[in-house]
């Protein structure tokens, strides 16, 4: 970017040229490195931190019938904590948070239980099979997400072949007193969890696969050689070493699942809304931007908390040994 020639002596009486060459010299010395380091920070500041601060500011405003529908001061305090107080008093929010966290947790656990064997399987098959299977893991992303949710709605609906098949097999299995006309799947937390697991499974499989793929298969053999049966080998060697993958996959599923809007709106139980639905409704229906912002901030704090704890734990785990003197 800055050619070497720009380092030459600045021409007299040309302050602009001098400034340029000073800049060029600085850039030459350390520009590339600093620029590369600064890029992600600039990105984060511009696209995360500043918008987030705007949301925080908005959460402390007061709702007004103006456009935009919020303001500061008036008969209310300049910084209005009403929203935060409501978070803890209005059961609507508390229940929404509980529902969201429950659904997201259960979905994450099922993603893990389903994804772990798949990821492990991926590491054990031949190279050519592995590429095909990895492709299949990612393939659903090629279809529109909405389309896939609608497909599930079709499957779960009362009159679908899928529902009828389940109903018939249930009726065939149990005494006739317990017979049902259809399986109530739609508009329930079950449906939300099912579709969430389906949607986010690849986000669990890929980081798990990445961490399992790096494991040395000789470690398994070493454990077997030392007397461990295969299940024991898994618990002692594979599982603890894949913990970073489990945590990464867990966060990739849990965080978006907890804030998910589309899935609960389309297949969820309308009487127990999830947090994404609340934020959306507060913004669009109630036009209570400060309250919507408050809920959004609360969700973020709730999500960032575990992440911070995890990174703290990881730092400690890494720092524990390296603090000792080396030979």
């Amino acid at each position, binding site marked *: 970017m800055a050619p070497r020639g720009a380092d030459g002596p600045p021409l007299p009486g040309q302050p602009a040229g001098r400034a340029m060459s000073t800049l060029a010299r600085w850039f030459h010395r350390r520009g590339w490195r600093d620029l590369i380091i600064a890029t992600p920070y600039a990105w984060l500041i511009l696209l995360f931190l500043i918008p987030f601060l705007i949301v925080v500011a908005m959460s402390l405003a007061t709702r007004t019938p103006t456009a935009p529908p919020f303001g500061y001061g008036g008969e209310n305090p300049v910084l209005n904590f009403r929203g935060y107080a409501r978070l803890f008093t209005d059961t609507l929010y508390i229940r929404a948070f509980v529902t969201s966290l429950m659904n997201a947790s259960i979905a994450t656990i099922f993603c893990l239980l389903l994804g772990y064997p798949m990821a492990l399987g991926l590491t054990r098959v031949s190279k050519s099979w592995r590429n095909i299977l990895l492709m299949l893991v990612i393939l659903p992303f090629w279809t529109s997400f909405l389309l896939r949710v609608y497909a599930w709605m079709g499957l779960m609906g009362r009159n679908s072949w899928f529902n009828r098949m389940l109903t018939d097999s249930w009726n065939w299995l149990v005494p006739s007193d317990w017979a049902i006309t259809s399986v109530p799947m739609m508009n329930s937390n079950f449906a939300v969890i099912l579709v969430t697991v389906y949607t986010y499974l690849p986000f669990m499989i890929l980081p798990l696969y990445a961490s399992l793929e790096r494991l040395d298969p000789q*470690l398994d*053999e*070493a454990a077997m*050689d*030392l*007397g461990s*049966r295969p299940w024991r080998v898994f618990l*002692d060697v594979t599982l603890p070493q894949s913990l970073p993958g489990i945590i990464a996959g867990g966060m990739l599923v849990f965080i978006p699942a907890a804030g998910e809007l589309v899935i609960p709106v389309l297949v969820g139980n309308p009487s127990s809304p999830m947090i994404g639905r609340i934020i959306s409704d507060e913004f669009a229906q109630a036009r209570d931007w400060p309250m919507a912002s408050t809920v959004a901030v609360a969700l973020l704090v709730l999500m960032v908390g575990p992440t911070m704890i995890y990174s703290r734990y990881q730092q400690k785990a890494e720092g524990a040994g390296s603090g*000792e003197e080396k030979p």
Partner: protein
Amino acid sequence: MSGEAEPFIRIENVAKSFGSFQAVKDVNLTVARGEIFSLLGGSGCGKTTLLRMLAGFEDPTAGRIFIDGQDMSGIPPWERPVHMMFQSYAIFPHMSVEKNIAYGLKHERISAADRAARVAEMLDLVQLTPFAKRKPHQISGGQRQRVALARALARQPKLLLLDEPLAALDKKLREHTQFELMSIQARTGVTFIVVTHDQEEAMTLSDRIAVMDRGEVRQVGTPTEIYEYPASRFVAGFIGAISTFPARVIRLTGDLAEVDIPAMDGTFAARATPGLTEGQEITVALRPEKVAIAKTCPDAVNVVEGQVKDLAYFGKDSLYRVTLPGGDLIAVHAVNARRGPDTARPADWDDKVWLSFEPASAIILTD
């Protein structure tokens, strides 16, 4: 040293194929209790496959393996009285040194105190006591190798398998560790089977060596037997440096054979081997250190003239490559026993020299 009386390990007609590739072909071996036995060969010779069959990671396609009289067929690795030291060491990276060593012990029904005592004993054996709490990435390669050894020895195996135990260490550490391995073996009395591609390592470590090539055992013997009495051209060439020449047996008198070596343009006396017939086409092999080099014609049975083509001066000794009358080259190794500007080495570039060797030094190979 040979285990004929009471073979601790008996490998009977063992073969192993991977698809159409025969990794191990009909191997028969016995190893005595307390022996250090090496499987020596180049890559792909089947030595590692054989080791993995002993550990139970691979099942033989044919044949059986007995360890201490017990047939190992169908016995999984976790039930075998055999532990392995992997080439990569395969130390559990998420466990401390101590936990690594204790790993095998958790399958034994012993008290926590006994277990701790056993771990302490192992740490002491490999001199790693101060590093007990370290994680594997915080210790050096040589220390990791010792952790792997301690971990494999902690459960007091009947047999320890070592896969290229010294390959990952630098030269200086290798020599030190070699002697340490031997002393640990002597103290524990455990039978060692070592897989190596390094002939020097095999020579110094082992009581006996099996030289393998393309899935077959070519020769089994003590290091001296393998070096001095190789059974085939392959073994002769694999162990140490050697010069080989096609030859023909002219006459047999007692234990001496008169052989015609066209490369040396003459007939020479060599110690006959059993089963030799007159007129047989053979190979005569000579170790570089068994050939004497001189600038004057020596008074010896076998003398041949030559010219120094190349020489490498190592200080304590020199290696010559001498052109023989037939145009072939022979390697000659001479110790630089005398000191002085002119006498430092017996010959120089392009010098005309006389080479001589004892009849017993000429190795007659028929295979």
